[in-house]
Each structure stands twice: as C-alpha cells, then as structure tokens.
C-alpha cells in the first residue's frame, strides 16, 4: 500500500499549497504524496471548501458613511513624524475618546436602579391589594385601624377586669385586708393582652405608620410607589443615555 508509506502532509503544507505559497520542490513533493494518499486529498478538499465558503461570504452592508466632519483639525496631533508605533497610541486615544469602560458599569447600574424601582412599585401594589379589595383607600385604612383597635382596648379592659376578678379572690384569700395588689397586677397584664388583640386588626404593618424612621415615605404603599417610580424613571433615563452615546 503506497497510501500510508509517506508521512502525511501537514495542514500548513496543504494550506500553503492552496495559496501557491510553496517552493517548487516542496510543491512537487506534496503533489507526489497527494497522488498516493487519499486521506490528504480529502483533507485538501476540506480546506479548499472552507476557503471557498469564506470567500463566498458577502461583504456586510455599510451602516453609514464614516467620513469625518470638516472641522476636525483640532483632532490632529502635532507630534513629531517619527512615531514608529502608531497602533499602541491609537488604542489609548480611542479609549480616551469613547468612555466604554465607564459605560458598562453605568448601564448595569441604571438597569439595577430600574429593577429596584420596578420591585418597589410592584411591592407597593401588592401591599395595596388587600385594601383595594376591601374597598378602602390606603389612607383611610390607617383611620379604620384606629377604631378597630379601640374595641380591642375595651376588650382588653374587660379581659383585664376578668383576670383582676379571677386574681382578686386569690389575693384576697392570701392577704385579706390588702386591696392594693390588684392595681399592680393589671398594668403587667395589659401589654400582653393588647398585643394579642392588635394582631387581627393590624394584619398590614404599613397601615400602622412608624414615623420615627429616617425614610418615612418607604413605609407607606404610596411612598413606596413614589420612590419606585422615581427609581424606575432614573434607571430608564440612564439606559437611554448610555445607549445613545453608544450609537452616536
């Protein structure tokens, strides 16, 4: 079998053969080998095919003309003509001119801001939903919450009175003639009972405003919505801004 006798041709030899970049002897040697070697012939055909595909690629359509405006003289670098590595300097200039390294973090930041804004908006809508279904605006819920807690207080008072009554026999039986322990028991029981009573009425924490917070607007759904909307707008503006600079 003569096919496997010689060493196979390297890709570099085959590639150079395609471009007629081999010396005469090298070329003759390659051709002799190719005549006997089917494998190398097929490898050559593969390479030729690949090159043909590359050559057949159409030229991309120009998106615009790249001519420079007439008043560009300020761009000229009045340097000595003996700059022997223009490539190195051009890359640094290009980086100075277009702030791509800055643009990316800016884009990411504005996307983040927009997402956070959207999150705020959505969460405010969600917190508003149960009140909306009960048919009352968020501002009125805080008003309704107060009367709702009022019966709770009366309830606790009643409960407190009951415990007082329940404890009183004990107290009276333990230390007769000392009615003072009863008032001292009642203040300790009121906070725990009132907390229990508050839970059903105060199901939505934002309805009870804690005004001591540094960002009070975030605690109400309306404030959340406002902040969310501002952030969203800011983020979108940032995105538009970075996009425009890119295409300009």
């Amino acid at each position, binding site marked *: 079998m003569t096919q496997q006798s010689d060493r*196979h041709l*390297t*890709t*570099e030899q*085959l*590639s*150079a053969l395609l*471009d007629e*970049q081999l010396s005469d002897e090298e070329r003759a040697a390659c051709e002799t080998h190719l005549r006997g070697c089917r*494998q190398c012939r*097929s490898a050559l*055909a*593969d*390479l*030729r*095919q*690949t*090159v*043909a*595909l*590359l*050559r*057949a*690629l*159409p*030229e*991309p*359509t*120009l*998106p*615009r*003309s*790249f*001519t*420079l*405006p*007439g008043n*560009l*003289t300020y*761009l*000229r*670098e009045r*340097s000595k*003509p*003996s*700059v*022997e590595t*223009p*490539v190195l*300097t*051009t*890359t640094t*200039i*290009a980086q100075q*001119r*277009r702030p791509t*390294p800055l643009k*990316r973090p800016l884009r990411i930041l504005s996307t983040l801001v927009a997402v956070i804004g959207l999150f705020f908006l959505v969460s405010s809508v969600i917190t508003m939903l149960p009140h909306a279904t009960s048919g009352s605006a968020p501002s009125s819920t805080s008003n309704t919450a107060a009367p709702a807690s009022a019966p709770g207080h009366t309830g606790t008072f009643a409960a407190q009175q009951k415990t007082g009554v329940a404890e009183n026999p004990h107290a009276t039986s333990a230390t007769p003639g000392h009615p003072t322990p009863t008032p001292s028991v009642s203040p300790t029981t009121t906070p725990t009972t009132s907390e229990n009573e508050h839970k059903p009425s105060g199901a939505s924490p934002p309805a009870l405003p804690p005004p001591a917070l540094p960002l009070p607007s975030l605690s109400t759904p309306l404030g959340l919505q406002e902040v969310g909307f501002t952030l969203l707008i800011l983020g979108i503006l940032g995105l538009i801004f970075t996009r425009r600079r*890119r*295409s300009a």
Partner: protein
Amino acid sequence: MGEIVRENEDQLIARSQQGDVDAFNALILLYQAATYSVVYRMVGEAEAAADITQDAFIAAYRHIESFRVGSSFRAWLLRIASNLACDHWRRTQRHPLESLDQLGDEDELHSASDLSALIEQGEEHNPEAYALNQELQALIQQGLQELPLDQRVAVILCDIQGLSYDEVAATTQTTLGTVRSRIARGRKRLRDYLSRHKELLPRQYRLPTNRE
C-alpha cells in the same frame, strides 16, 4: 489596485498629512467598506463594528503624519482597525452576555443573499459562485469568532479580504512564516468547527469526515 489610483492615493495621503480633511475623507471613502468588513468579521456585531470603524478612522487621521509614504496604506489602516477590534473583543469577552445580541444582529445584516440560488447550485468546481444562505453565513461567522484573535485576523485578511501573505504580514507586523502558520491553523480550526456543525449545512457544503 491600478497605477493611477495608487498615485492618486499617494497624493491624498500627502494632502491628509498637511491637514486636509477632504483628502482624508476621500481615503475613507476608498477604504471604509474593507475596513468595516474586517472589523465586522472580527467582532460579529454590526453596531460595535461601526463604532470601532469610526474610531479607527479618527485614530488614523490623528496619526496620519506617522504613516510612512511608500508603505501600504491599506495595511496601515487595517492594522489600526484590527487592533481596535481585538481590544474590543478582549474587553467584551469578559462579559459573555453580549453573545446573545450577536445572533440577533446576524439576520438583519445579510438580507440581500439569495436563498434559492443556494439550493440548486454549487458543484465543487465553481465554489465562488455560491451564494450562502443566512444560516450558513451565521455559522461561518460564529466559527470565525471561535478562532484565536491572531488566527482570526490572518484568515479574515487573507480569505475574506483577499490580501496576499505579504500584505497580511505587513498588517499584522509579523513574518511570512507566522502568517502562513496562522492562516493554516485558522482554516483547519474553522473547518473542524464547520464539520462539527455539518448537520446545519446544506448538503453540498457538508465536509467529509475528519482526518483525525
């Protein structure tokens, strides 16, 4: 390039070196298609390619005085452009999210190609007559982007732009031997890539099985 054009080009370069923007714009008109094409094939993204091309011309204009009269202006220009494209590639490679956009841009760009011509035509005798469909173009473009930058530049300059080995060597500032090896390795890698994806190729493009 003809002698008259060549002479004209030298004059345009000389005038550009005196600060004549119009002369430089005439040079841009001569070379913008080739420059954009190289950059586009390098980065595979139309918008970024346009930015890089514009930057390359601005940089070339700023440094036109450093261009040595008598050497190849095309090689000089393509060197600036391909270097900027390489910079862009290295920067964006750290953010692979971008590759999602690339596929989208592909379709809009080559709307002119003729699909029907592809099906009926194409024996291996006359491969230049091929008109590639869009999927095939996108596949080749993707394959180019898989190449290491030095091989990619060499293959694009030689096989797509039709530069001679000498001109590729001048553009990439390397030796003929290096050019030869880069082109060979780039072609082989691209061939392997295409045969890995040959199920996507129309029948007449399918490469026979690999040697390895």
